[in-house]
């Protein structure tokens, strides 16, 4: 029971980071119908920013976090403007290929600048683990879960009730009609990329606190997992990304504990395949039909 609970909490820890990253995929997909394959590499950019500001420049952790968020947002917005915006009315496959290209560009730029060897992420929090009746939980885990839940609640509130959030939902349903309402779709898309990348920036910091190694390709795996989480939950649906991330994290961690460590990815992808076979729109996806 103790093992089960602590694995559940571990799974929640990874899963909620996947969820944070998955939000970037799903929000961008919702509005421009593009799988932004460069999103994983935004995590890498955030991680390098954090590592350099912390280790080389000796900045404090909160300032380093802000720097990581700022750079992620800057990169995200710039990539959208330069690489995706000119292709907005082209076939979707063009922007998809471009996204893969941007991802390779970012990885190889990092390789050129920082080299292939991974850099250690410094310990930013030195707090002893917490104990609850026999279960030991690291402080990083608690912090990650609390921060992520808070962020998701904030995001949900923003999208549901704010003027900009409603504009975002309207544009993601039908961007032409959104324009007829007076919504500047370009601004809305920029805002969407900015929010997605800010979450990825925070996600990268939390990820590095759990897996403290920063390398040019470090974004690929969490990026892929987060993408799968977004599809699992229903791509384009914000609560879906949250649910998908947590389900994946927990499945991964329980497989590692009870079946086999090597099998964990296979089980996760297996779950994805089964869910998509049974419900092609994902866990929370709905099929919308046109009414006459």
């Amino acid at each position, binding site marked *: 029971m103790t093992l089960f609970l602590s694995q559940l909490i571990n799974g929640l820890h990874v899963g909620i980071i996947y969820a944070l990253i998955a939000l970037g995929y799903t929000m961008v997909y919702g509005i421009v119908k593009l799988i932004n394959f460069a999103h994983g590499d935004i995590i890498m950019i955030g991680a390098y920013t954090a590592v350099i500001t912390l280790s080389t420049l000796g900045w404090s952790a909160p300032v380093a976090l802000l720097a990581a968020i700022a750079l992620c947002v800057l990169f995200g917005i710039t990539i959208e403007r330069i690489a995706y915006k000119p292709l907005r009315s082209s076939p979707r496959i063009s922007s998809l290929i471009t996204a893969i290209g941007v991802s390779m560009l970012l990885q190889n730029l990092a390789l050129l600048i920082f080299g292939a060897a991974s850099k250690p992420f410094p310990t930013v929090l030195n707090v002893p683990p917490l104990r609850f009746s026999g279960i030991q939980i690291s402080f990083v885990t608690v912090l990650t879960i609390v921060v992520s839940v808070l962020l998701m609640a904030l995001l949900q509130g923003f999208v549901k009730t704010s003027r900009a959030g*409603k504009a975002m939902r309207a544009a993601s349903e039908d961007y*032409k009609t959104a324009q*007829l*309402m*007076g*919504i500047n779709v370009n601004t809305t898309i920029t805002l969407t990329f900015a929010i997605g990348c800010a979450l990825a920036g925070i996600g990268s910091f939390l990820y590095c606190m759990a897996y403290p190694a920063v390398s040019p390709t470090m974004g690929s795996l969490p990026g892929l997992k987060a993408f799968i989480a977004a599809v699992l939950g229903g791509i384009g649906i914000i609560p879906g990304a949250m649910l998908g991330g947590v389900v994946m994290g927990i499945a991964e961690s329980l497989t590692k504990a009870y079946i086999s460590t090597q099998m964990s990815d296979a089980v996760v992808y297996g779950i994805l395949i089964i869910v998509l076979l049974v419900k092609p729109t994902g866990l929370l996806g709905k099929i*919308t039909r*046109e009414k006459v």
Partner: protein
Amino acid sequence: MLKVNQINVYYGAIHALHDISFEVKQGEIVSLIGANGAGKSTTLNAISNLLPTASGDILFMNQSIRKIPAYQLVGLGLAQVPEGRRVFSRMTVLENLEMGAYTRHEPGHISQDLELVYSHFPRLKERRKQVAGTLSGGEQQMLAMGRALMSRPKLLMMDEPSMGLSPILVQEIFTIIQQINQGGMTILLVEQNAHMALNISHRAYVLETGNVVKSGPSQELLVDADVQKAYLGT
């Protein structure tokens, strides 16, 4: 109020609109009638700048709007009810109406207009918390019209409001269009249902394969032999 001067629109190599010119005056209902593919919706989308105009000019309140991006036109007083209603189906009725008032910043006036829209469409008030995708086709048309009214437009453009609706509902919707016009709203109506459109409009233009082939007071067009033969089936 609206003056369209010899506009040309292309879809790639296809020349969709040929030197289209027409005019809508303050307080009028003007309808554009014609068969499927005649260029009626294309004309509306060109005015809204959802489609680029290759040449010609569009004047709204004596100002050229041809180069103004679509999202800025609502603020100038030009609202469009798009073809096929295009309500935001995952948002509630109230949220849809709020999106209509997106460019406006006076909360007091917005709640007044909300009441005005509810007075035209009482059913929207009953269903304000419902997700728009669950409404019937007629209710969605009402929502699309209410949403456009929320921007307090000077000119309301409507694209095929009768599409896919039962005859009773069409009658109901057209009565409301007339009421809105009697309240002072200028309306540009695009319709395949020529009979209904001519019955409520003051003037009309007949479009055929991207050309204006006939125009005049609606009452005259209703008895015009060519129009009767081609569009009224009598």
